[in-house]
């Protein structure tokens, strides 16, 4: 959730607050907020206020992305210490491409989890989409663009079918998507036919999705600069508008700090990627999808409805939200994202095979969403958890591969991380419920 600055104009602890602060609200607006109850959550200005606010959030279970960031830091530190190749430009670049495939599927899972439901079929749907693309394009000579659109549309349609049975007929989502898991895997084998594996031509557009790099130095730095500027501008304009109408706003200093943190991350990433082949197209696509869908969740009324459904179906219904339509659309989106992920994976591997979409792909996609901080209980989470969760899972497997650790151990460790994430989710949920202030 968004953090907000809470100002007051009395209280002994922060008498004369704001004075000299860079984001001083105008005095009339402050006086309008008359008596302040001592129980209100009031954040003091300055660095100390920031720390107390942070401490309060931690104690009340609003952990946000803190556990997963700490997790990534630990994982990276350990692997870098064990093998200095881990943070090398090549390994990081490969990791960033690896994220895209399963990450796309995971984004769809985030939406379904926000509803408080589950989708077990995304692995099979992604495999079927890859098979559809390959069969249409390679076997039947359909132009690539049309084949890609057909594959994406098939994913969205299959998702809508799951949504229909769940939302309209009332079959539990677990069972509907379990049926989908089996059925679409069967259909994929049928579509692939006796050929088994269909290779995708190396010079094709689909291959380029994960093989193309923007090798000019300016590309990566330019994107980083643009993103930083856009972030600052959005935050700054929002803060100015809030100040204009006299509601709590972020002080300029805080916006600058946040922008600086983002800039450091982006420019470091750009610098590292430029040391290898440049900015991978796959990473650009993945992050663009994340930005767009994050906007949908947080800033549109559609996203608000999805989150409301995850909180309380009855409340959403009474607020006039079309529950059936929202549910079907979310499953359809999950199918669409699964198909996107399937295409990205096929692009990276260079073929659509009978193994596509099977194995632990589904489990990784769900695990990534949960590890990234999206609650299994619905209504809480962020699209970015797909990226963060994939960073954890991808880093573990990449690092273990570097160290030559067997798959068996990798699975056990990933399982342990997932368990830890769910435990954190459950505990923080319980804390949040009991942290109410009377």
């Amino acid at each position: 959730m968004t953090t907000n600055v809470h100002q007051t104009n009395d209280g002994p602890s922060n008498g004369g607050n704001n004075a000299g602060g860079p984001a001083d609200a105008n005095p009339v607006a402050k006086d309008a907020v008359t008596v302040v109850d001592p129980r209100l959550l009031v954040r003091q200005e300055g660095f100390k206020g920031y720390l107390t606010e942070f401490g309060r959030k931690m104690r009340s279970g609003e952990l946000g992305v803190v556990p997963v960031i700490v997790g990534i830091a630990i994982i990276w530190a350990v692997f870098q210490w064990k093998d200095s190749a881990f943070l090398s430009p090549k390994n990081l670049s490969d990791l960033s491409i690896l994220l895209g495939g399963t990450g796309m599927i995971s984004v769809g899972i985030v939406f379904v989890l926000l509803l408080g439901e589950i989708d077990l079929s995304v692995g099979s749907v992604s495999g079927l989409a890859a098979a559809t693309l390959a069969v249409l394009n390679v076997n039947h000579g359909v132009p690539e663009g049309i084949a890609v659109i057909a594959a994406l549309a098939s994913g969205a349609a299959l998702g809508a079918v799951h949504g229909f049975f769940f939302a309209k007929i009332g079959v539990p989502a677990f069972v509907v998507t379990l049926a989908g898991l089996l059925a679409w895997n069967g259909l994929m084998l049928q579509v692939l036919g006796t050929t088994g594996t269909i290779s995708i031509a190396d010079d094709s557009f689909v291959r380029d999705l994960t093989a193309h790099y923007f090798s000019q130095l300016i590309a990566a730095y330019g994107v980083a600069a643009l993103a930083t500027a856009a972030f600052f501008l959005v935050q700054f304009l929002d803060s100015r508008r809030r100040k204009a109408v006299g509601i709590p706003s972020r002080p300029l200093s805080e916006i600058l700090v946040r922008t600086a943190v983002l800039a450091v991350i982006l420019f470091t990433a750009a610098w590292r990627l430029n040391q290898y082949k440049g900015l991978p197209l796959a990473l650009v696509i993945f992050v663009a999808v994340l930005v767009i869908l994050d906007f949908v969740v947080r800033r549109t009324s559609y996203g608000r409805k999805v989150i409301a459904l995850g909180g309380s179906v009855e409340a959403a219904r009474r607020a006039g939200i079309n529950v059936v339509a929202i549910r079907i659309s979310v499953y359809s989106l999950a199918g669409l994202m699964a198909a996107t992920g399937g295409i990205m994976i096929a692009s990276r591997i260079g073929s659509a095979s009978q193994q596509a979409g099977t194995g632990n792909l589904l489990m990784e996609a769900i695990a990534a969403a949960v590890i990234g901080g999206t609650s299994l209980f619905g209504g809480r989470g962020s699209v970015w958890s797909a990226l963060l969760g994939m960073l954890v899972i991808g880093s573990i497997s990449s690092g273990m591969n570097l160290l030559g650790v067997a798959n068996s151990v990798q699975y056990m460790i990933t399982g342990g991380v997932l368990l830890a994430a769910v435990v954190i989710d459950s505990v923080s949920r319980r804390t949040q419920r009991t942290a109410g202030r009377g």
Partner: protein
Amino acid sequence: MAIVPNGPVLALRGISKRFGAVQALTDIDLEVHAGEVVALVGDNGAGKSTLVKSIAGVGPADEGVIEWQGRPVQVTRPHDAQELGIATVYQDLALCDNIDVVGNLFLGREILRAGVLDEVEMERRSRELLQTLSIRIPSVRIPIASLSGGQRQTVAIARSMLGEPKLVILDEPTAALGVEQTAQVLDLVERLRDRGLAVILISHNMADVKAVADRVAVLRLGRNNGTFDVKTTSQEDIISAITGATDNAVTRRKARSGEVAK
């Protein structure tokens, strides 16, 4: 209380409702004026909820007339009631635990700006609304899950105020609340009255009723069993009207002996 000094905002005339073989409501009359809190009391199964549902358009009555500001109206859907200016706060509050106060207040009627949620405007209006109702909550950006029961109830009531209703129906607003929280909610009920709204308060708690209601309408077995002025009526009288203690073995014997004496 400058609004329509004479004439009720809502008047029910001869409302009846039947569920199969059960006559849930028989010939109910009820009047509510602007700036007045009418408590609707009665034992379990007396028909309070059924009556409220008929006003709110959830379960329309079979017979009878609903008059809104003096003219008869049809309330067959919840939407009709909202159009008229009737807001109902149900016992289960219908709030989303995971969404913050602002989001809950505007759930289903979000303010958009160029197709995007206008959080700034929604937050400004939320603060304004909560301030005019003197509702104190830790922060408008805190999830509902972090609020106490009383605070949630006040948020639910505040939400009903967004549609600028003329009549607010509160179904058991203080059930399951502690002493302090009940006080918060009752304060809010008084402020609604002071703002010239008509309030129908369903409650089991006589102390609450005595504290804020102007009049008490008693239902018993689906019939009117008297309307009392709170200031001039003792609690015992109201309770006996609810339980029907005015009609028990002792009174019957009295009636019989009266007949015999004749």
